[in-house]
């Protein structure tokens, strides 16, 4: 019984540590965007999940005609799977459904670079990126 408890406790600790590491990775990415945002606008006070939600749902102009919105591929409900235009499944964007979302800086940089250009026809600002992640981390 003691051995079992020990194993269970160990497993729980490991899981907690893994979750903490993942959260830490996302926090570091958000912190870097916050530094960038503050540099661009000294009156920046923090990211907003609400702004992120509006950005996610909005129809943007200036991008490529087939991809006017984040929701084109990710659907309006970020806890659900999305689908690429070529028909491939995309794991949910919401962190509650895909816990390692926004924890790999290279992956985050690659997809913001591509998708901001596809959807908005420009790079996203640090505030837009931080709001986006903050929104999806709250889902």
């Amino acid at each position, binding site marked *: 019984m003691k051995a079992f408890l020990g194993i269970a406790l160990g497993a729980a600790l490991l899981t907690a540590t893994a979750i903490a590491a993942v959260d830490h990775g996302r926090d570091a990415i958000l912190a870097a965007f916050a530094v960038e945002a503050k540099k661009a606008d000294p009156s920046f006070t923090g990211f907003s999940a609400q702004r992120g939600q509006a950005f996610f749902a909005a129809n943007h102009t200036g991008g490529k005609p087939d*991809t006017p919105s984040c929701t084109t591929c990710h659907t309006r409900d970020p806890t659900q799977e999305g*689908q*690429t*235009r070529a*028909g491939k499944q995309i794991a949910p964007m919401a962190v509650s459904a895909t816990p390692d979302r926004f924890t790999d800086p290279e992956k985050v940089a690659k997809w913001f670079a*591509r998708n901001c*250009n*596809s959807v908005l026809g420009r790079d996203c600002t640090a505030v837009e990126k931080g709001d986006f992640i903050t929104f999806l981390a709250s889902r």
Partner: protein
Amino acid sequence: MSRYCYLLLLVACFPLDSRPAFAEEGIVVPAIDNPATLKECGACHFAFPPQMLPARSWKKLMVNLKSHFGEDASLPEATRADITAYMVSHAADAPTTENGQWFLRGLPDNATPLRITEMPFWRRGHEEVPRSYFTNPQVKTASNCMACHQNNGEGTGGDED
């Protein structure tokens, strides 16, 4: 209804041999063995076998990833070069590609298609497939090979298809 149930129903109602013609003729398409190709191409769509287009098509496609069928699919230069080299060296007309001529049959020398669905071999193989199969929301597009040709998604498995 899940995608798979739906497809099962589809197949049940409209029996369709999902084995590609090349498999019926004993032509094997080797699995892609380049990690960058599987990862990067496979992120958005089935990683299409290099054998299905000539080298000139892959070269043309891979220099314009910024505008890739309506999306920005840019890659870091080293990754782009790695994938291009793999696709070109395994293209239909690459010297070491087995059965490459089968995929080139009917393609004029001066044509550089960017879509496999523009290749004469593809058209021959799908001429009896109703258009509604491709526009079905579960399939979405003719480039969603896996909707009908089930395999592991990492290159077609020849006879097993």
